[in-house]
């Protein structure tokens, strides 16, 4: 997963420089290439959003036209669906906020000089932790802290903190050490170097970690229903247990579309927040 996020990052960066590094550019060439670059990088995002909308419309049309049993109709009533979705998003966002508040400062702290010796071990643990199956984490934690919304949230936080923590650390680590030295050499305090040099340069990698975490959260939040946490997972479980295929399919599709939508939002944020000049 780590590789994937980093590769995506490198891919984007590589594309940028290929488009926007004119040999010894005359001044007018720069704005033109910037404008072109703008459309090219937005194009993928537009396609992704269009794809999500088309799939959603298809789902709606199918639900309207399909021959559904009364149970299916009750379960799939728009109001009920909306309620599950809101629950799902609440779970996801709450967990995400907690993750950001914990993992980013922790990631920063672990790359500072006094704690730097911890960087490698923590990264190793984060990688191992990522391999643990989500369902295991959810259920085990539920046995420990009890069932319900908060148990679900806690396990989601634990699970999603790892990519954010790791990408924060990797993002900060990959900042060219010579730039940090240049900053210190100019008389910037270590805090100034962190906020004005290191963090801005780490933003692309950090945001892609956040996006990964959000997508993970949307998927994992479907498991929250096992511990009475609510969310769209209920549709999938009901669908499986009662052999209601339309319910199962609707639940799965909604989770997938929500994940894609969150991924899209994340990409837009990444695109807007990416420091210019990178």
């Amino acid at each position: 997963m780590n590789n994937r996020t980093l590769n995506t990052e490198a891919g984007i960066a590589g594309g940028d420089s290929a488009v926007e590094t004119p040999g010894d550019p005359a001044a007018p060439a720069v704005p033109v290439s910037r404008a072109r670059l703008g459309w090219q990088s937005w194009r993928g995002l537009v396609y992704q959003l269009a794809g999500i909308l088309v799939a959603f419309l298809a789902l709606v049309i199918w639900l309207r036209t399909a021959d559904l049993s009364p149970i299916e109709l009750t379960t799939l009533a728009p109001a009920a669906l909306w309620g599950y979705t809101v629950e799902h998003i609440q779970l996801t966002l709450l967990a995400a906020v907690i993750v950001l508040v914990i993992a980013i400062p922790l990631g920063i702290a672990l790359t500072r000089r006094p704690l730097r010796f911890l960087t490698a071990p923590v990264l190793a643990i984060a990688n191992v932790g990522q391999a643990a199956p989500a369902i295991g984490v959810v259920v085990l934690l539920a046995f420990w802290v009890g069932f319900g919304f908060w148990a679900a949230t806690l396990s989601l936080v634990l699970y999603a903190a790892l990519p954010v923590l790791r990408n924060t650390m990797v993002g900060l680590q990959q900042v060219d050490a010579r730039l940090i030295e240049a900053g210190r050499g100019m008389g910037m305090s270590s805090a100034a170097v962190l906020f004005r040099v290191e963090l801005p340069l780490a933003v692309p990698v950090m945001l892609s970690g956040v996006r990964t975490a959000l997508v993970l959260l949307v998927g994992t939040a479907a498991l929250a229903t096992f511990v009475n946490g609510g969310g769209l997972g209920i549709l999938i479980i009901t669908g499986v247990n009662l052999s209601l295929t339309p319910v199962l399919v609707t639940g799965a599709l909604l989770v997938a579309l929500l994940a894609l939508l969150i991924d899209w939002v994340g990409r837009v944020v990444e695109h807007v927040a990416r420091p210019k000049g990178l």
Partner: protein
Amino acid sequence: MSEFTSSPHAESTSTDDSATPTAITGASILLDHVTKRFPGQTRPAVDGLTMEIPAGKIVMFVGPSGCGKTTTLKMINRLIEPSEGRIVVDGDDVTDMNSDTLRRGIGYVIQAGGLFPHMTVATNIGIVPKMLGWDKARIAARVDELLELVSLDPALYRDRYPKELSGGQQQRVGVARALAADPPILLMDEPFGAVDPITRLRLQDELINIQEELQKTIVCVTHDFDEAVKLGDWIAIFNEGAQLEQYDTPERILGDPANEFVENFIGSGAGLKQLTLTRVADVGLRAAVVGNPGERAADVLARVVEAGHGHAVIIDERRRPLQRLSRRELGRLQVISDIPDPKLPVVGIRATLNDALDTMLVSSAGAALVTGRRDMFKGVVDVQTVMDAITRSQAAAGLDSDQAPVGLNTGLFQAQASAAGSDPSEIEGSGDGAGAVQ
């Protein structure tokens, strides 16, 4: 050995040296018995170094990699804190001063400029002034002024990001950024190591021009001895543990290397390298008989014979040289044409004697035409002129220079007292001994 004989003089004259000229904006630096030990290393990276860096001069640190020259440089702005010893800038002990405050008063240039990629050229240059609390208008004016200084058009480059600049341009912005708050001292860590040779030569020339204007104290680390000879007022040659092998002018290092280590470091062709120290402008140019296109060749020939010269130089109406004609060629011609000779051996007046000699050899003319501003013909430099310059610089190198700044390692104090004039190996030995005792 010259460092021993010259250092007592230097001590007495150094204070005057920093006080006399008015244009100097640089500050003197004194490294006083500075030692740096890194944890886990038996030998200190810098061993009891005492070194004076005169105000307004360019001092080049050269030496093999790992010799401690970069460590020494970074101890001046305390990016590396010295384990022992004091750093004195302009008479003030800065060893215990707040290091961030200290560094805001010292420009720092690293390889490839070290520009922050997410900031525009203007923001990069404005970092230190902003930290010092300048207002926006003043910073903007300063940015433009500095871009002009490093030969970049402000309107074109101010708002660019570093990746939109070539390597040489980035390096220029790096220098501009270091000069932003007008610091008296500029530290450069292999500044031109990452650019191609042609750009490097141009940047070196520009640094010389900037220095003529600003008179900062510049300390520059390089592994390129030729760069040191070209840029340095003084060159410090370091051996392992920042042992100063020789600290002297380029002329004297080339003409009178202190020991075998320095000789080896200079490498072959010391005589030729000396030629890079003198510029054509500094040697006496010979006058030439000039003629214009359209003149009768016989008239020009008559003037050449009268002056006792072998050649005439044909110049156009703006005094740019077109041709160089021998007596025989003049004898064959009727009227002098205005067709320029593409193989004319021409050098600029700011060129080094090395360039001039090269031009002569390539064109096999035995002389080169010197041009000044707007390519106007100034005179002729020939092989004899170059030979005279070599003889003179060798004679000068033989003399002791009184103004050489102090530079020595702690262990050498005893060596100097007990065995003045002993051979280098003995001095080295006692230096190591002192290092081990500490």
